[in-house]
């Protein structure tokens, strides 16, 4: 057991901190600190700065921009980025489709997609969930039927986050409706979102924002070369992707930063000395510390690249705490929290105005990435053997 970072890792951390706080434009970092939505341009600019410095896809194979870091270094990278208010590389690209293509894709697919994916020249959307396939993802019904050198895709995806910005969408589609198990007839397909017959329709959310979309497919023709891996093996790739997704989905660093900011907010409304408020800070700070240390522990255990089932703990607890922190911020704001849409001329401070939309928006965190009930199911079955 060793408490301290090695000299090498401490230097690594200091260099990343220096980079993130000096090379990423202040205006982007201020937007993150204020908990406002980033524009497409801001996200692209930020990711390209990271990619140019080799910091966008460090966990990919070295050949495609990976850095061969230890799990601990990857953890430090992820935490420092959040700490500095730098938006992490777009998850759909860096954490989801990139590793799938790098692991299961053809050489041609790797060459065509991976550099552009790392640099956010292609903005990927995720086409997994459907109206009748949420937690029960394998019951998806969007079909892809082979017709010569093409698949013809019909159906509907939903909850497509930032789909309005998407260039391409990676989709799970049913290619064998007669497979004995529903998991066996699914394939993983890459689809150009400018294809005829593909339509993106916005879904307005409870925070007033437009973050997710429906994506409709009507006889969309997709070249067979855009099939990833083997036909009807898409479920394996999806499980691989979802396992990766859970690791990054616990934003401990961001929750810590917001909680630290919330101390200033509490001070500004003269509530930090209130014992009831102080106790909530203490409990949240301690739970976040326990979770951060757990993330470090899990990182050390997933050396073979496979997600530790304990990553479900990170997802479950990480999203609970993220929600709890947002709830505390809203409570601190008091009646100013109601002035969400008052605009910048309001006398209510921005953090207070943002607090309600953020609180409402983050209700999604315990639903996406495998709902927290699915995570409990994984813990109960896979870890506890129940």
């Amino acid at each position: 057991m060793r408490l301290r970072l090695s000299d090498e890792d401490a230097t690594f951390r200091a260099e990343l901190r220096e980079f993130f706080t000096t090379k990423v434009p202040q205006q982007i970092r201020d937007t993150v600190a204020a908990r406002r939505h980033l524009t497409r341009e801001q996200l692209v600019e930020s990711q390209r700065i990271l990619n140019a410095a080799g910091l966008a896809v460090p966990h990919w194979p070295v050949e495609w921009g990976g850095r061969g870091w230890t799990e601990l270094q990857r953890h430090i990278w992820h935490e420092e980025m959040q700490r500095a208010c730098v938006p992490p590389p777009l998850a759909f690209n860096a954490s989801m489709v990139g590793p799938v293509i790098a692991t299961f894709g053809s050489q041609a697919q790797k060459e065509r997609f991976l550099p552009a994916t790392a640099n956010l020249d292609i903005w990927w959307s995720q086409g997994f969930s459907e109206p009748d396939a949420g937690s029960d993802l394998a019951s998806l019904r969007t079909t892809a039927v082979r017709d010569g050198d093409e698949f013809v895709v019909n159906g509907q995806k939903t909850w497509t986050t930032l789909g309005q910005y998407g260039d391409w969408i990676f989709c799970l589609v049913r290619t064998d409706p007669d497979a004995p198990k529903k998991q066996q007839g699914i394939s993983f397909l890459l689809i150009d979102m400018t294809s005829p017959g593909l339509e993106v329709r916005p879904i307005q959310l409870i925070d007033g924002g437009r973050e997710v979309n429906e994506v409709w497919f009507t006889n969309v023709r997709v070249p067979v070369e855009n099939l990833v891996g083997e036909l009807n093996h898409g479920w394996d790739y999806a499980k691989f992707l979802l396992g990766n997704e859970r690791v990054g989905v616990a934003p401990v660093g961001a929750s810590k930063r917001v909680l630290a900011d919330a101390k200033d907010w509490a001070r500004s409304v003269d509530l930090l000395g209130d014992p009831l408020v102080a106790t909530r800070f203490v409990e949240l700070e301690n739970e976040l510390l326990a979770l951060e240390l757990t993330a470090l522990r899990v990182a050390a255990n997933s050396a073979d690249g496979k997600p530790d089932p304990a990553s479900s703990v990170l997802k479950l607890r990480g999203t609970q705490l993220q929600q709890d922190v947002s709830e505390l911020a809203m409570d601190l704001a008091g009646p100013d929290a109601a002035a969400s849409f008052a605009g910048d001329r309001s006398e209510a401070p921005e953090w207070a105005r943002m607090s309600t939309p953020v609180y409402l928006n983050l209700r999604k965190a315990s639903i996406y990435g495998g709902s927290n009930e699915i995570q409990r199911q994984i813990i109960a079955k896979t870890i506890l053997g129940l």
Partner: protein
Amino acid sequence: MDFTYDAEPVALRDAVRALLGKTYGDYENRRRIVAAEPGFDEDVWRRLAEMGVLGLPFDEADGGSGAGPVEVAVVAQELGRVLAPEPFVSAVVEAGGLVAAVGTAAQRAEVLGSLSAGERVLTLAHAEPGSRWVAPAAAVVATGQGDRWVLSGTKEPVVHGARADQLVVSAALPDGGTGLFLVDGSAAGLRREGYPLVDGGRAARVTFDGTPAQPLGEAVDRTAEIERVLAAARVISANEALGTMDVALDTTVGYLKSRKQFGVTLNHFQALTFRAADMYVSLETARSLVAWASMVLAEDPDQVVDAADRAGLKVARAGRHIGQEAIQLHGGIGMTAEYSIGAYTAHLTTLEQLHGNGHRHASALAATVADHGEVDPLA
């Protein structure tokens, strides 16, 4: 940063687990032992001494084995796993820890030597009626000078206070501050009324009435040393609680897989398995924080008070959660003394009461929460 144990603590863990398993692997046997005086197995205590366990944290020059807090923590986890009632934390970590911190060379050699050899059971008499885990003493007062001192007043609860051969006693000094003294079990004017604790442990009300006492080191203010040792004991007892929670969850999971109702085993009911999953989350996040606090104790002892409060708070919350749910998921059988799970919950409860409950730790941390932005465990 590295959370894995080196080979030595792993070997120690295996050896201690094997030794304790022989006596306490059978829960019925544990019940028999705690039902009789002195409430633990003197033979197990001797064997722990032979294994070097009772002298783990002490210098070799003082008769110890010169190991560190990580090894001590590993032993505590094993004791917690089987609810071994031997007074390891009170004797080795608390009383022994204070002797090591402030005792003279002669006191260290004599007291720690015989403690390490299993010849003498030590305890710390510090808690006072109505006191709430504070470092200063008030109800026991020391008077005297030079080497001639006497103590008067009451300490309670004193863990294994009736059985202890020697007590390390905190007492208010005539000129202010809290001093530390050694008192023999056979000293004049010493009254000890022992009683069982709810988890099968033992404590005593210890009354001093002009009782002769020998200053541990010099009779000067030792409040800071007491605070540090109480914090160290908090970290080690958190490790003990971790072992207890670990087995409480295992036992509960085993029960859910075997107990049948409505014609199926209980693990068919998601209302129950989801609660077990939440217990696992509590356990694993507690494990991480306790491991961190143990490393702080080993490598950065100046920060141990804060780390102990944090580990203590987490374990208090996790202990309540796991302890309560363990009984609930068992149903009626969990209420019986015959079955082990209730004793696990009772032990978690007792550990909190002896070393500080969640309210205490949260309150201590609330006093400093405005002093920093983030807590950085990698700093």
